[in-house]
């Protein structure tokens, strides 16, 4: 009998820890992101803007380099957090949810301007495979989203 893990509430330390574990256990991410953040700041700040389904904004900081995640933590999203991140990806929560549930491609959201990028957009696009793998692993965390 297959064990189905219990969904983890989105936005909690447990969810962030599960994501870190998922990234470090993913051969897809390890290979696709082998060159990500090597010699440059590959840390990401994912900004989930409040909308109908999310009462207050959330910010997830990911410390990423060479196919490994060494820190995943929900933070306040201050200027300091943004400064520590090489890139900030900002979108309404409902769009993030569409991406994580595979209804929308992250690349499409970025390329059509629906997701805002702070940082070197070209570098982000160049590593399309790393970002696709990151999104896949993130979307694979068993999640209970706020309704």
């Amino acid at each position, binding site marked *: 009998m297959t064990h189905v893990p219990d969904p983890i509430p989105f936005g909690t330390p447990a969810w962030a820890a599960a994501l870190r574990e998922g990234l470090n256990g993913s051969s897809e991410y390890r290979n696709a992101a082998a060159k990500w953040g090597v010699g440059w700041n590959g840390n990401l700040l994912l900004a989930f803007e409040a909308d109908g389904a999310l009462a207050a904004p959330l910010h997830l900081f990911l410390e990423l380099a060479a196919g490994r995640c060494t820190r995943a933590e929900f933070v306040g999203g201050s200027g300091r957090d943004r400064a520590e991140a090489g890139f900030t990806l900002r979108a309404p929560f409902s769009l993030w949810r569409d991406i994580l549930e595979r209804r929308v491609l992250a690349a499409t959201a970025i390329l059509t301007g629906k997701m805002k990028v702070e940082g070197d*957009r*070209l570098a982000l696009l160049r590593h*399309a495979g790393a970002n*696709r793998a990151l999104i896949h692993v993130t979307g694979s965390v068993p999640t209970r989203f706020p309704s």
Partner: protein
Amino acid sequence: MSGLRDQLKRQIEGAVRDAGAVPVERTTNFGHLFRSAPRLLVEPRTAEDVRATVQFARAKGLTLSTRGAGHSQSHLGISDGGVLLAMGSLGRVLEVDDRALTADVEAGALWGDVVARLKPLGLAPPVLTNNLNVTVGGTLSVAGIGVASFRYGTQGDQVVSLDVVTGDGEAVTCGPDRNEDLFWSVVAGLGQVGVITRARLKLRRVKPLTRTYYLLYDDARRFLEDARFAMDSGRFDHIESWASPSPQGTKPVGGRRQVFARWFFPFHLTVEFDPGAPPDDAALLDGLRPYENLYTDDLPTAEFFSRLEPVFDLWKRGGTWEHVHAWMEAVMPWETAPDLLDAILPDLPPSILVGGHILLWPAKGSASRSRLFMRPPGENLVGFGILPAIPPKYWPEARPMLDTASRLSIAMGGKRYLSGYVEFTEEEWREHFGPMWEPFRASKRRFDPDVILNPGFVPLDERRPAASPAA
């Protein structure tokens, strides 16, 4: 018998067919993405037939779409309830002037027929497309690119003059120095302002033989450095390159396992030469740094021009010719071309290239004067094309990947080449043409005031009939 058909038939020498008599293959094009039936199919025999048909369509409030060999992939070369003018019936190679180095050809002539006629004279058009089974009028309408474009620009740059029937039914001769606004609106103008009926093409003398060096690179950046070196060296007459996958196994991409490949970069460099005076191989290849020098091939020049025919035959015999062809081609700035390759190739499944391939073509921006062949600023450019043949049932699966590749190419400063699969929003069309958007619209208003020509693709006007997806 249809009243409309009878009325038009009385005015022209060519054939006119009702919707019910339109062959099914003329309700779609090489893309097999859209299917739509014209109300009338017209096969003109003369330029006067074209003029009369345009005037007829205008008077009856019908749209008029033009079709050459039907090699387009988006909503071009087909008609949704209007008149489809199939130009293949106006396809003669007329006069060749050996001294002035020009050839007069009807718009529906195939480039292959032009080459065949010129072969005994030791002449050829400076630029030839890889596929010679496409028409002169068709490729001039999208620009026309080939393996000598790095030197001679587009086929549209190698035209002395064009006879055109404008959308208001006037027959006009135009060229780079005569009615030039019309000329540069027709070249790469997607059939929006007029119908080409005849072209006077520039020719060049060719040497009888070619030698092609088949070099292979295992690194995109080194390949691009050498491609630039080869262009700048002036040593070569033709330059062609591909990206070629060597399947290695399977890996997860977005959680689904798919075949992945190590990519290599074949680089084919060709020189023409006279019998008894073979090229100095070592001198020609000096300074190039391929992973391997695979093969050196000598061919009669006319055979070199049709070198890909066996490949096309293979695709036809394999059945992939009838698949969906959603070709994503873009002209990239030199600086970002490697980034685009980095972004796309690692996760591109080699299987998408069964019956297709990936083209790379180094180019020089200043080689073309075409106003509507949009390209990035800068002298050194790289064309990149994913040219797949997709079984129709897999099109929905493949489409997001090609859409993403298209958007990536644009985000990295590229411009799409418009003969392939293009689905732009109006805003994206404006962005594509940039400063040429308003002049293009002005030409449309001037030469096609009733907006009858080739609707359904570039939205220069508000009339844009919906197309029915075929796949």
